[in-house]
């Protein structure tokens, strides 16, 4: 029987009977099949976080081996080739396989909960993004484990990456793996963008969205624009290696610098893409512990966007020494100095939030607050490299290594660890151990700064990056020993974090729905949330729905326990992009194995390309095609309908 085209979604109070009906609709299958076929954003989000964290640990172990080698001059722990593969794999792991996916994991888990929604806009695409991320990580690590890890740094400059200088499979694993991973990032980006603009609950207009939306949305718009540049670059590299195209070969009319432009056009926006969501996690969590709203919400939101826009115009500051004309360099130098302003907005907003609030000291707060200082240290060293003549001295020394680690550990890892302490109760229903948390924080903090603060001096004393060893009379011995000790202390801190997670999972105190008395919607539902997230789709009237009555900003009251019931199928509310007016019932797909099957097909295809087994490529394509047909097979329950307006329509209803 055909469902009616229009239906008025019922509005009513939340109650146990209704929740039981929703549970039946939303709960996934138990067992292995349920595990493999789930499209629940919460499960996918946690998978992202766990997978990315495992990769963080792998990348960390790689760095410890390197620090062992560099602890003293002329050491022989590693051969030059082993060292070069390790530092490249470390960069690949941390930058591509950890830093971005972990933030996708948090936003994946949190966005629907913060938006008063029941899932991401495209749940199956979400599952596919995760499976492809996992498959590409395995693909890249199979390269590493078979002795074919990347060996030309994460930046992978040509001509060293071309076949003349790099005859092994190393660069084929890396270039195909990056194209593979890029599809996951691109799909994830599209999903985040649509989710941001279509699934916020009624009333959550664009000026009331949680800060996490701004960072993640901005980062994903950037990803959608720049990931194709790097995927293209790696694809061209693979063609060059395997089929003798000459994109980068100067003796046949190619240009080695083309690689650097394509790479950094992606690479610099990417740096912002892996810090902006983390910054907005701080903007979410820090105010809660300061017991007040974030200072300057609008300015901070706009500066997030401004950072990204300027971030598209600074890529050449990675190429100041490549012989480009001085006039061109000065524009990029100016843009790189100007980008300090939007970053400074966030710094001062956080500081003001602390000064004008009453900070409650928790482990999460300590991570968020200390991040401010790490950010400033990483920021000012970045500002130094923005000055072209100074950069001619700084670039490719350990000064830049210190800089990038203050940026990536300071602005990504610290907020991420803080975010785990902050949202762990929501994800698991249990609080993390605060006592162990303090030990964890202080050891991590001291270890990190011990390792990387003196490294600035190592750089100013001229130690080049990416060297497997150094002579004893260069003046770097003591500094390197300190860095090695610091890196092991940092590793101990991370180990304590893992201990705390495992311990708290088993014995942590029950958290309740809102242990921090926080303001956003995810704290209005039980911990951990039920599969359907919200019994009723709430209607919000302010930026801080759970703090209404205590702040002066809201003129109306949000309705959290009475709202759209949407219990006739897996449904959530679609709303307009800016004002979040309800205009469509979004029909959500059932769990399905299609994303996993598609991933298997694409994986076979990529292995076929790697080994040039064209039958495998064809087989992979067939499996992928079958999965896509399975995916797109029309289903009656996915027909989407606009709700019939309760009042006579003010304007023509739009059909999606």
């Amino acid at each position, binding site marked *: 029987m055909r469902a009616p085209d229009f239906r008025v979604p019922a509005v009513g109070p939340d109650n146990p009977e209704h929740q039981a009906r929703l549970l039946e609709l939303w709960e996934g299958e138990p067992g292995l099949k349920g595990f493999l076929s789930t499209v629940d954003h919460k499960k996918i989000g946690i998978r992202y976080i766990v997978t990315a964290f495992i990769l963080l640990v792998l990348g960390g172990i790689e760095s410890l081996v390197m620090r062992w080698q560099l602890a003293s001059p002329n050491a022989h722990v590693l051969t030059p080739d082993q060292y070069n593969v390790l530092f490249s794999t470390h960069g690949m792991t941390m930058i591509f396989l950890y830093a971005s996916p972990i933030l996708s994991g948090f936003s994946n888990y949190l966005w629907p909960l913060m938006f008063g929604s029941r899932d991401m806009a495209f749940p199956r695409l979400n599952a596919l993004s995760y499976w492809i991320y996992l498959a590409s990580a395995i693909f890249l690590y199979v390269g590493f484990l078979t002795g074919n890890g990347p060996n030309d740094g994460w930046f992978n400059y040509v*001509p060293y990456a071309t076949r003349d200088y790099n005859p092994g499979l190393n660069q084929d694993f890396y270039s195909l793996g990056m194209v593979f991973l890029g599809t996951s990032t691109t799909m994830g980006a599209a999903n985040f963008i649509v989710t941001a603009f279509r699934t916020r609950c009624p009333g959550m207009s664009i000026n009331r969205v949680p800060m996490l939306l701004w960072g993640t949305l901005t980062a994903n718009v950037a990803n959608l624009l720049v990931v194709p540049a790097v995927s293209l670059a790696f694809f061209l590299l693979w063609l060059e290696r395997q089929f003798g195209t000459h994109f980068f070969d100067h003796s046949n009319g190619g*240009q*080695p610098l083309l690689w650097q432009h394509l790479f950094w056009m992606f690479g610099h926006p990417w740096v912002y893409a892996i810090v902006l969501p983390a910054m907005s996690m701080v903007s979410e969590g820090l105010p809660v512990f300061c017991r007040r709203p974030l200072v*300057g919400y609008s300015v901070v939101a706009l500066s997030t966007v401004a950072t990204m826009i300027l971030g598209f115009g600074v890529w050449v500051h990675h190429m100041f020494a490549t012989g480009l004309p001085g006039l061109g360099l000065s524009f990029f130098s100016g843009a790189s100095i100007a980008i300090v302003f939007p970053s400074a907005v966030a710094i001062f907003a956080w500081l003001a939030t602390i000064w004008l609030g009453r900070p409650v000291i928790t482990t999460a707060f300590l991570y968020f607050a200390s991040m401010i200082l790490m950010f400033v240290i990483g920021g000012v060293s970045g500002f130094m490299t923005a*000055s072209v003549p*100074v950069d001619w001295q700084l670039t490719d020394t350990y000064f830049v290594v210190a800089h990038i680690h203050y940026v990536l550990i300071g602005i990504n890892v610290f907020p991420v660890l803080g975010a785990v302490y902050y949202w762990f109760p929501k994800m698991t229903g249990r609080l993390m151990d605060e006592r162990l948390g303090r030990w964890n924080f202080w050891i991590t903090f001291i270890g990190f700064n011990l390792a990387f603060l003196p490294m600035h001096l190592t750089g100013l004393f001229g130690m080049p990056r990416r060297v497997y060893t150094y002579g004893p009379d260069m003046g770097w011995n003591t500094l390197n020993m300190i860095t090695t000790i610091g890196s092991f202390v940092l590793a101990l801190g991370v180990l304590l974090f893992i201990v705390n997670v495992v311990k708290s999972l088993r014995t942590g105190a029950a958290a309740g729905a809102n242990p921090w008395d926080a303001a956003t919607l995810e704290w209005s539902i039980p911990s951990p949330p039920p599969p359907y997230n919200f019994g009723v789709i709430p209607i919000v009237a302010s930026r801080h729905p759970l703090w209404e009555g205590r702040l002066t900003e809201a003129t109306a009251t949000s309705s959290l326990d009475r709202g759209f019931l949407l219990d006739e199928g897996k449904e959530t509310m679609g709303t307009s992009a800016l004002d979040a007016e309800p205009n469509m019932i979004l029909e959500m797909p059932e769990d399905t194995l299609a994303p996993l099957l598609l991933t298997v097909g694409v994986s076979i295809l990529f292995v076929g390309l790697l080994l040039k087994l064209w039958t495998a490529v064809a087989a992979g394509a067939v499996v992928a095609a079958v999965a896509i047909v399975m995916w797109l097979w029309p289903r009656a329950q996915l027909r989407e309908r606009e709700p019939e307006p309760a009042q006579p329509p003010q304007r023509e209803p739009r059909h999606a």
Partner: protein
Amino acid sequence: MSSTTPLSYLSAAGDRAGTILPLTWFTLIVSIVVCVVIAVLLYVGVSRRRVRQTAQIQQVPVTQAPGGLRWISVGLAISAVPLVITLVWTLSALAATSGPPAHPGLTIDVTPHQWWWDIQYEGERPSDIFNTANEIHIPVGVPVLVRLHGGDVIHSFWVPQLSGKTDAIPGQINLSWLEASTPGRYRGQCQEYCGAEHANMGFEVVAQTPDDFRRWRADQLSPAPPANTAALQHGQEVVEFRCGLCHQVRGTGAGGRAAPDLTHIMSRRMLAAATLPNNPGTLVAWIQTSQELKPGTLMPDQFLTATELPDVQAYLETLK
């Protein structure tokens, strides 16, 4: 040059690096001041009214004290001052140091290879042109133009005491320049990752008085001295046979151009791209066990016999 930290760029010994040095110090000091100020603000802000007990969070009321936006506007206004100064200073320092000198006193062509530096001195007549490796001599007080050619992969030319980095990229010729104000030895280093032995790809710049430089140049122009004993002749034959495919010894049958020119190897202080001090012991060790001393280097271990090795060593020692 600072003897304890030869690659430090917190001091300078020449015009180009010297113009940049105050800007480096300015941005460094501004950066340190900013970090200290923010650290103090953060520490005071956190400790002023903090609540130590995590469990009490539910009891601390939520408030909304006004005045936060002033932090942002004042903060940005203060930040603008050093940023604008830096921008203007950057542009003027860039203009002063980026362009090569209009009338260089000397022009050198440098072609970095995996993992050594080929250095060619330009001359007015073809017979004035000669090649050397890994050690650049320049006269003090004269701007020296360095033309950087791409050899194989990308490398970067850097002499921190004299000049910032410029990459050498296949398919293009990049220009750099040096000017030393006092005589001395200045360490240089490849600064762009270039493969296995990127770590051991150094060189030295020797700044000399104009007279010393002229003498050095005349010496370098001369071919290898004749081998005038039986042992030396044997040594030269082995060098021509075993080394000559890659190395050049001008005036002999060794004519390879794929590796450092050896015509005056004993005049250089270091071996293997500033990896080893140059003395008879290291020279022999380098010939026989280069793969152990610099794993991955394109020079294979030579396995010279007990009769060949002393003669080769003796012959090479005449190449002053």
